[in-house]
């Protein structure tokens, strides 16, 4: 997995972030990223998220990356616009 071309590493990271949104299991996300053998998985996710933001990538993918990065403790200023809540409560 560590030998993947960068575009596929990025894609895999996007998928892991989507997985985190699905199961909310941060440790599982970290474990899934481990085969990439990046030096620091937390800053790695932050960097991918910020790169996607700067390259104006897919908004849904960015949102997943941002949420995972924030869950890992790296919630930077460029990420803030992607953290808006979406659910609405039922009418009484």
């Amino acid at each position, binding site marked *: *997995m560590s*030998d*993947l*071309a*960068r575009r*596929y590493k990025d*894609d*895999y990271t*996007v*998928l*892991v972030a*989507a*997985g*985190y*949104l*699905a*199961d*909310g*299991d941060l440790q*599982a996300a970290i474990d*899934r990223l481990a*085969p990439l053998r990046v030096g620091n998985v937390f800053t790695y996710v932050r960097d991918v998220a910020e790169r996607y933001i700067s390259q104006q990538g897919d908004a*849904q*993918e960015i949102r*997943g990356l941002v*949420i995972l990065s*924030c*869950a890992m403790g790296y919630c930077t200023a460029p990420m803030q616009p992607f*953290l808006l*809540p*979406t*659910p*609405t*409560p*039922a009418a*009484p």
Partner: protein
Amino acid sequence: MSKIAAWLPFLIFGLFVGIGAGVYYAVNIDPRIVTDVSPDQLSEPDKLNYLIALSLGYSRDRRIENAALRLLNLGKEWQDIADAACELTQSGYAGTNTGLTAIRAMVELAASQGATGCASALIPSGTATPRPEPTRPPPTPTLPPVPTKTPTLEPAQTEAPPVALTPTPAGEFAVNVVAFCDTRVSGVLEITVREGSGRGIPGVGVAVIWPEGRGQAFTGLKPERDPGYADYVMSSDQAYQLEIPGRSQRSARLEPLPCTAQGGGRSRASYRVIFQRVGG
């Protein structure tokens, strides 16, 4: 001539030693590292990781074309996802909620393209919460309201109560979740907070938590249904957990996955979440 013949064995020996040393160096000391590979060149365990990830990705974005492209890059087919889900189900992977979520995502993705395996029967897609719950509360509150000193709503009252007037319940609450699929109710959290006796408790704030935020649902706003009842409409792309802060455990993750109701109609999964006092 005889001089060359005398050296020939040494030359051949040296040649083999050189070749052997070269092979050893290339294999053990400084092997060639393949970089920038595509997913189809990954090892099988890594391909499985990728399969799981792409299935989870599909469960979030519902973009089948993206999943298909990723599957193509991986050199796999839809049936491979169903087969992998089957193997994972038979391993210990299904022993956690996270594992179940992943397997369910794989089953769902494979089934969307007509591929099925043993996991499809064990963990059908769209059931949303296969996690077994050890205990079930009584099906409906049966006891009549009991006079109380605390300000609570009467069942016949139709106006929303001033929530601040109602005390937070003491004691611990067990949480129990039952998923259901109904075309009349799509993606709704039907929350009930009860006494141990089964009597509904109005005015309780139940935290509704999703990965990047949280909200609150107050019981008692629909007294015609139950004094301890509240509901919350789920966003289709979110998973939620519920808790009474400091008074209960968090529920399992609840997601409004597409489902088929008994009559065959399509809807999204809804959940009855019951907090029942077990102490205090």
